[in-house]
């Protein structure tokens, strides 16, 4: 990548001292349907290029689309979960523009008649006081159905982009995969917390979609993609939600594409705030354009200029009949919705017995689902929290990714964490050994039992070895032994350490302590 940081930026606090940010988030979600939106082709990720294609999704002359009913069902469920109204009649529309990875040179989408509209999602961010959380209501403008495009691979050239490439390869396996685009209304009133709100929204949306079981929502595989719109307007006081502030007209916005991790969502908002502020304070004006986010450098660069002249010539798709979900069906689907996330969090916190602080850490780490599944697999809530927020969270953080994505990448599953914990409970591993086993799992050495076996990590269960070590240590330390005999049990600690050393760590310290005290008549 040869992206250069040629844009001036202002410090974040300095920017926020003068400006009020307004955001808009567009999230594309690939549905997990078995077949594409308008044909019967499979949707398996990672198949050989151009093996999941047919006349319809290749846009061959004469081919016609047929709507995937499962896709419509998922769209309605998503709309309902986002507290939207569901259209009783709506149509698909053609969005016309030329691009090699779009077989028909129009995308079958929805325009002024989305399947779902006017909803909201409440998201929680840590309270500024440091205690508890604050709720921010993200208003949803619409959720509509459309099809994905193919994927271009630009070969040669330095940027991986089409400019300067020697040639391009196109894979149409993705063409026609059902997408739901969820568009927020302008998010106002978040003030300096805008980046956090953006991240919390995408995270909450991801949790919701996962709970709905409509998508695998893997941002790194592109099954969930986010575009961030941002503009700044002059600040009208300290309260970003004041009437005076809300009355200030919005500034020119930029649309940042390719924002494909939770961290990036936060980073892209923050960077664009700083960049806009630098332009505006130096007397310049913001160019309405598409910008590209670079995950590696944490900056955006200018893409194509997005003028008002860009005209998609939308019109109702004449090859498809209108979608008219009947009210009874919509109510049936409403009954299939999972518990609303906020309510669910409250319930889980009660069930798990977490303090507000513990729950907050879990939420911040995005570990609710992981812990829930780990508890379901047999671990205690405290143990589940301890393991997930330990090494895995630390590594996810260093790799600038989120816990769910990280766990998915390294293949750490909730059932493995439960397995690890059960080995501790059963006395096969002590805490220190369990940490080593977990590291082994994260390093890709296999499941917990496999790692423990391979690394030879196991508490010695044969008491004779431990007994021998205890006797040796007592014999080696007659004065400490005497103190213990005299009732000074705290002194046992010194002997336990030596016993563990004798045992090369492979002993249960509790058991060693019991044995020492018993032998010295102090138990």
């Amino acid at each position, binding site marked *: 990548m040869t992206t250069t940081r040629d844009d001036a930026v202002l410090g974040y606090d300095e920017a926020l001292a003068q400006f009020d940010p307004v955001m808009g988030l567009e999230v594309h979600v690939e549905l997990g349907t078995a077949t594409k939106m308008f044909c019967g082709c499979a949707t398996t990720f990672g198949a050989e290029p151009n093996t999941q294609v047919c006349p319809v999704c290749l846009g*061959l002359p*004469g081919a*016609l689309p047929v709507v995937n009913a499962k896709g419509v069902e998922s769209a309605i469920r998503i709309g309902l979960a986002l507290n939207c109204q569901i259209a009783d009649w709506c149509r698909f529309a053609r969005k016309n523009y*030329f691009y*090699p990875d779009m077989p028909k*040179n129009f995308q079958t989408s929805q325009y002024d008649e989305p399947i779902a509209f006017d909803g909201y999602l409440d998201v929680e961010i840590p309270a500024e006081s440091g205690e508890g959380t604050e709720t921010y209501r993200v208003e949803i403008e619409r959720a509509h159905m459309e099809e994905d495009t193919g994927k271009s691979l630009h070969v040669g050239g330095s940027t991986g982009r089409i400019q300067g490439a020697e040639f391009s390869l*196109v894979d149409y396996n993705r063409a026609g995969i059902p997408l739901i685009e969820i568009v927020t209304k302008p998010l106002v009133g978040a003030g300096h917390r805008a980046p956090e709100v953006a991240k919390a929204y995408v995270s909450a949306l991801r949790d919701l979609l996962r709970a709905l079981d409509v998508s695998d929502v893997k941002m790194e595989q592109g099954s969930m993609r986010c575009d961030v719109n941002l503009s700044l307007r002059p600040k009208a006081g300290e309260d970003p939600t004041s009437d005076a502030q809300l009355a200030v007209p919005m500034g020119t916005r930029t649309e940042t594409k390719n924002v494909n991790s939770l961290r990036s969502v936060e980073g892209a908002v923050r960077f664009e705030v700083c960049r806009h502020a630098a332009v505006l304070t130096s007397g310049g004006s913001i160019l309405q354009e598409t910008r590209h986010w670079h995950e590696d450098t944490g900056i955006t660069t200018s893409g194509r200029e997005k003028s008002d002249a860009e005209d998609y*010539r939308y019109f109702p798709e004449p090859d*498809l009949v209108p979608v008219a979900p009947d009210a009874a069906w919509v109510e049936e689907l409403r009954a299939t919705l999972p518990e609303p996330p906020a309510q669910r969090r409250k319930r889980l916190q009660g069930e798990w017995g977490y303090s507000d602080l513990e729950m907050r850490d879990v939420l911040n780490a995005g570990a609710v689902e992981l812990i829930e599944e780990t508890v379901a697999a047999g671990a205690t809530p405290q143990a589940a929290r301890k393991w997930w927020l330990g090494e895995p969270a630390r590594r996810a953080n260093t790799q600038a990714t989120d816990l769910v994505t990280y766990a998915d990448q390294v293949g750490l599953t909730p059932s493995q964490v439960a397995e690890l914990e059960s080995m501790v409970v059963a006395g096969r591993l002590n805490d220190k050994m369990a940490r080593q086993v977990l590291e082994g799992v994260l390093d890709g050495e296999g499941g917990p039992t496999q790692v423990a076996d391979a690394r030879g990590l196991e508490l010695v269960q044969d008491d004779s070895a431990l007994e021998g070590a205890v006797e040796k240590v007592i014999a080696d330390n007659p004065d400490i032994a005497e103190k213990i005999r005299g009732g000074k049990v705290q002194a046992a600690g010194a002997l336990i350490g030596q016993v563990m050393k004798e045992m090369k760590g492979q002993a249960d310290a509790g058991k060693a302590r019991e044995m020492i005290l018993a032998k010295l008549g102090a138990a």
Partner: protein
Amino acid sequence: MSDITRLSAADLASSLASGELTSLEVTQAHLDRTEAVDGAVHAYLHVAGESALSAAREIDGRRAKGESLHRLAGVPIAVKDVMTTTGMPTTCGSKMLQGWVPPYDATVVSRLKAAGLPILGKTNMDEFAMGSSTEHSAYGNTANPWDLDRIPGGSGGGSSAVVASFQAPLATGTDTGGSIRQPAAVTGSVGVKPTYGGVSRYGLVALASSLDQAGPCARTVMDTALLHEVMAGHDPMDSTSIDAPVPDVVAAAERADVAGMRIGVVRELTGEGFQPGVQTRFDEAVQHLVDAGAEVVEVSCPSFEYALAAYYLILPSEASSNLARFDAMRYGLRVGPDGVAAPSAEQVMAASRDAGFGDEVKRRIILGTYALSSGYYDAYYGSAQKVRRLIADDFAAAFGQADVLVSPTAPTTAFRFGEKTDDPMAMYRGDIATIPANLAGIPGMSLPSGLADEDGLPAGFQILAPAMADDRLYTVGAALEQRLLEKWGGPLLDRAPDLTTARQTEGA
């Protein structure tokens, strides 16, 4: 053997069933006829002799084994080049698709094959079905068998000419604004545009999706009905296909009884602007129906005044989007821009579209792109959709007074090549009587009403029926045909010139 090609599809079917003829004989006879006359007519873009003969042999074999076959099994057919066919090119009369062999059959083609009709070849057409004369084909004109200096109608001039010149008893067509009915009218043959959704559009290279409808072309009303029956029916691959039983068009053609039926003459589609000889034959035909016991009423459809304008907004709009896929990226013509060493994908797209599309196609793409542009959409596409509703309302009111509506199919008989190519509006006006049916999605038939006195060329009689009442077309059409045949003393096409002596070749 040459009289085999004079037989109707129904008669051929009987002879095949009785064993008097084999499909191989019938198919070979038609291929021989093509060999003899198509140099002059140029109705075919591709003749599939070998595959037609092998399909014929297979049917003969199955018949010999006593298998029960479709009534039309073994009767050969020509297919308009707008329908995808495996094993044969599908060009839509465009350089853009020169040599393109589709990997799949259109549903209509699958149905023909399943019924055992050998496919003789692909017929010429105006490029991407845009035109009323077949002069817009990138592969040269098709001549009208009645006068080789005249147009055979369009866009399906190849299909009308192929049946009118006895090269095939049957052909398929598609009708977006009259492309089946107007060619039938000017060649003295019969053509039907079924109810929108009656025949699957899957595999029909789309011109205007909301207007396109495939239908049958033949020389008699009964043959048209027999082919209609094979082509029609619900197709899950086409969302706009009607999921309901196909009206019994064959029984309707057999009935041929109009006693007590109300025939509505559309005031706006007669009189001024219609060639006198066309009008005279029309008036006589109406009188025949009265003689046969029908009642005639005059109906008015005031919104038809705006039909042409609405049509020429909706069609180019949809076409501009439908034809966007021809971009040289996956199939079809690919040329690089002149003098550019390493062209971008966009440059290749632009150069290929410039080289691959003809003038009429470009004209309509530009019109449609403009009509859909933001700021113009409401005034153009939006208004056109409103007109469409008004026209449907006019039809609904008219069908309250009459069981079928009638008019001349086209205002004139066949014009000469080149007569209207420089005046697109004059060409468009020729579609005035056929377009309303497409805008409203209702079925229509054209059958010959006789020869116009002033030029001795065929005139067409159009019958329109409410949506899903395609059978009425056949009842009325068959009744009229019976009376006209009596009057003429035989088929009108018997009076067409004997083409085997024609020396003219295409393009000369």
